[in-house]
């Protein structure tokens, strides 16, 4: 969405407050984003975002294409580190610790903050090896212990029953939905504290999509989930909190039920009722 357009929208909503953000108590927050701005070259993508993500809950980021929600997710995993064009400012705290701090090893951080992408991307290996991939990067485990973790991860990802007899088949023999659950299992195996899901069901058929949603609801007992989605029904079904982003800004952040039934800003209401998406 162009900048000019967002400015017209702003002027139309004149008189209204720019944003409505609920404050999550610091004790409940696991991730805290503080005045985060980011630009690709000259193109701003995030403008001064601040919010706190609560622990053991599902937080959805919604918003039109180009609003910065995927960019924000990649910041949390420090995937922008590789891109020289990106300049960013502000802080992200994971359990009170700055993820960009000098003492933080990026590989270590990514183990704590796992990420699942839009298209299923299993490695060209067996199902077993895919889940073992992250484990093999760490200190060597006894085979029995590793097998246990792999089984646990596949069970947690609701995939175990479907693949337990063919763990050593290529991961590409699985269907798209199974592949995406395999990727989630692969991420769970390294036992992250936060799971970032970047439109995890948008490339899947409706049934597979429902399975993923169910899985997400079950996962929040163990970790904090951040879900980026285009699909507002999905956000409403799955998440506890929802943040609406537009033009790189956080517009409204509230408990999901409040945001969808009683949006406080007209910009949010326009978006969720489909007036401008």
């Amino acid at each position, binding site marked *: 969405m162009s900048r000019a357009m967002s400015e017209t929208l702003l002027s139309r909503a004149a008189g209204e407050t720019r944003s409505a953000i609920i404050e999550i108590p610091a004790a409940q927050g696991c991730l805290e984003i503080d005045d985060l701005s980011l630009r690709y070259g000259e193109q701003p993508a995030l403008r001064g975002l601040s919010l706190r993500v609560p622990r053991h809950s599902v937080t959805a980021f919604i918003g039109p294409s180009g609003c910065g929600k995927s960019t924000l997710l990649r910041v949390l*995993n420090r*995937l922008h580190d*590789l891109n*020289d064009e990106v300049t960013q400012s502000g802080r992200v705290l994971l359990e009170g610790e700055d993820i960009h701090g000098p003492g933080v090893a990026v*590989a*270590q951080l*990514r*183990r704590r903050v*796992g*990420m*699942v*992408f839009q*298209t299923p*991307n*299993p*490695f*060209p290996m067996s199902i077993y090896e895919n889940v073992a*991939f*992250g484990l*093999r*990067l*760490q200190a060597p485990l006894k085979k029995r212990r590793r097998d246990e973790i792999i089984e646990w991860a596949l069970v947690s990802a609701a995939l175990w029953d479907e693949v337990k007899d063919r763990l050593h088949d290529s991961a*590409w023999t699985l269907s798209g939905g199974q592949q995406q659950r395999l*990727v989630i299992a*692969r*991420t769970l195996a*390294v036992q992250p504290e936060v799971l970032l899901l970047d439109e995890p069901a948008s490339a899947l058929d409706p049934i597979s999509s429902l399975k993923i949603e169910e899985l997400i609801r079950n996962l929040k007992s163990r970790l904090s989930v951040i879900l980026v989605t285009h699909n507002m029904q999905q956000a409403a079904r799955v998440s506890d909190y929802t943040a609406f982003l537009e033009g790189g800004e956080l517009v409204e952040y509230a408990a999901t039920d409040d945001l969808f039934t009683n949006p406080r800003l007209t910009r949010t209401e326009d978006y969720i009722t489909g007036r401008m998406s």
Partner: protein
Amino acid sequence: MRRAGRPRGEGPWPWLAAGSLALSLLMLAALLLLLAGRGLGHFWPAPVVLVTLDDGHQLAGQPVREERRRTLEGHWVRERLYRVGNRDLDGEAWRWVEVGRIVAEETPEAWAVIERRRWGELIVRPLALEEAGRRLTEAPLWSAFEARLERGRALAEERDALREEVIAPLARRLAAGHDDAAARERLVAAQARVAELQAAMARDVLVVESAAGERLSVPLAEITAAWRPNAMSPAEKLLAWGSNLWHFLSEGPEAANSAGGVWPAIFGTVLMVLLMSLLVTPFGVLAAVYLHEVAPQGRLTGWVRIAVRNLAGVPSIVYGVFGLGVFVYGLGGRLDAWFFAETLPSPTFGTGGLLWASLTLALLTLPVVIVATEEGLARIPDQQREAALALGATRAEMLRRVVLPMALPAMLTGVILAIARAAGEVAPLMLVGVAKLAPQVPVDGDFPYLHLERKFMHLGYHVFDVGFHGGDVEAALPLVYATALLLVGVILVLNLTAILLRHHLRARHAAPGTR
């Protein structure tokens, strides 16, 4: 919907395209057929024809081909070329005969083709066998002759074995300064046995007569092979063809490359190509990985890419000159001065050799490997890299565990292209290490087993040498065809091996969309 089996597209274009493809395939087939026909036909035992001319002269030979020629008077005559052998008797091993002057042709069974160590082959009628000057009356003559030829071969084998396994090692030991009385004694004994064997081999002599009526005594020790093509059944001929072909493949060259086999050249070609692959693969892959995965992308990497692609177009002889100047004289001269000073001025590494030839060809094929590997790396989806990173892999772990395995088929494609290019190169090799004649292959039982400094033979250079540097063009021509066919065959086998390997790897590591 289009009908199956019809070319897609409209107008003359599909036909034009299909025609071009058909023409290319036809030319390829014609090339292979020519090489196979001319080259493999050479080993077939052709019949010996006894020709009587209108002036009463007789000649015996194997017809090779016919041509129409214009005489000095201006009319056309058909002439036929005969391989008549007997170079030491007649001075010419080939005879053109006007077909119109032939009054009689027969194929008598008694005539034989006899190959000798010197002077090429004889096409003669065997008359008698002599043992130490005494004429023998054993009958039939031919089977007696074959039995004695076999005895001679056994003796020669014993002599060669003695020379190789006893005399040579002892002589090396003594030359190295171990003055050992027992060894000296054994050496003398072995030499005496060799002399004995030589004398025993010289015992038998075959007396033969040429078509012109000249008689000749041929010691059996001189004879390498003999057959009577007119008396052979088709099965025997096929057997003889196979055996000739096997000798061509498995033996060293004789008589200044104009006869004998090409085994050292096959071995040299394959070994050189394998060494080249071993050298070029790690360099090419590392360079491509740096260029695509490590270096910050910018104008400089763009320029480097253009330069690498252009290097692939540099004529190969230029690489030869570079190899001669830098590897042979530069590096080789340095190595000699440091490690082989005691043998100077005769060079060890300071002259062309297997190592320098492989290095030069590795340099020549480096761009191919770099380009192919880079293309393979570019085909790997970024999601795969991100997935590895998101699981806590460092960049190095991501490269090693995800990216490189997935790029393996592409790397092998690069190596296949490199092999295809390197195996056929001759020009640079002439400068950096190929030899006209190197009957010792560069691998043997002596430490360090692989002799990188040795010169080697190469099929491509062998074609050139046999075809253009031999005295006897008619004799060389079939060998040129056969060697060329063999070169094509060797490259095919090398490529097929790599392709099979790649297929195997692809089944394990293919990236989506690269299958």
